[in-house]
């Protein structure tokens, strides 16, 4: 099994701070973590690495816009390009 998360204790050792300080970072939602139960907290390694690098996701501009039309085709099926209908 791959190791995908740290425990708060492991993070405390890496950052050289106390376990409580790690939990405080988690509680303040500064450090990305997952509460598995009231007593179990897991800190995803990939998210922890990003956090340590100082990564901050860019805030997206979000707007309401028409949904793109989705044409469903079969596997390996290529649909012809749309063209104007010619009336007789």
């Amino acid at each position, binding site marked *: 099994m791959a190791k995908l998360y740290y425990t708060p204790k492991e993070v405390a050792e890496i950052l050289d701070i106390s376990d409580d300080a790690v939990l405080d970072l988690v509680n303040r939602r500064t450090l990305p973590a997952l509460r598995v139960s009231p007593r179990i907290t897991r800190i995803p390694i990939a998210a922890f690495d990003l956090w340590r690098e100082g990564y901050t996701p860019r805030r997206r*501009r979000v707007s309401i816009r028409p*949904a793109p039309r989705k044409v469903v085709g079969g596997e390996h099926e290529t649909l012809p390009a749309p063209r104007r209908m010619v009336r007789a």
Partner: protein
Amino acid sequence: MTLASASDLLTYLADLIETLERYAVTLLPPSDADEVGLEQEPDGSLVIDLEGRLPTPRSSKDVDLLLFERWREVDQDAWLCVEYRYELRHHELHYRLALHRHDEAHFVRHFGVATHEHCEVTMGVETCGHYVGEPVIDAFDAFDRLYGAWLSDQKPDCSVLQCLG
């Protein structure tokens, strides 16, 4: 049931994307763009449709995360989530987990519940078509559950779920 204004939904989607990226999820186009759409379908409903990849070692196969919600306007600028599909497809361990609420009338009529789950220990092989599903609060709740399942790096134990049929 949560009612939201259109403005609330825009903030919700922006917050959701931010959270996914904080947790090292790589969003796939078009959600990785600077401007993201809350898509309005021809029937007027608003749709959130995000797809991302969870962080995996280079040698591993992908782990896909799909988050889909449909919101319908039930009153003046009051939107209700009427459908959701949240999924984790783990191509390395080859399992699928899904938390669904759709075709509510059909599911209530046949199974007496509106929400259900899919759990495939081997992706594509269903031991049971639909399992009883604990209702999901919102996409953040779904993300917590699916991300938590991925983080355990084990196949799910579908036998603990109650089969609906």
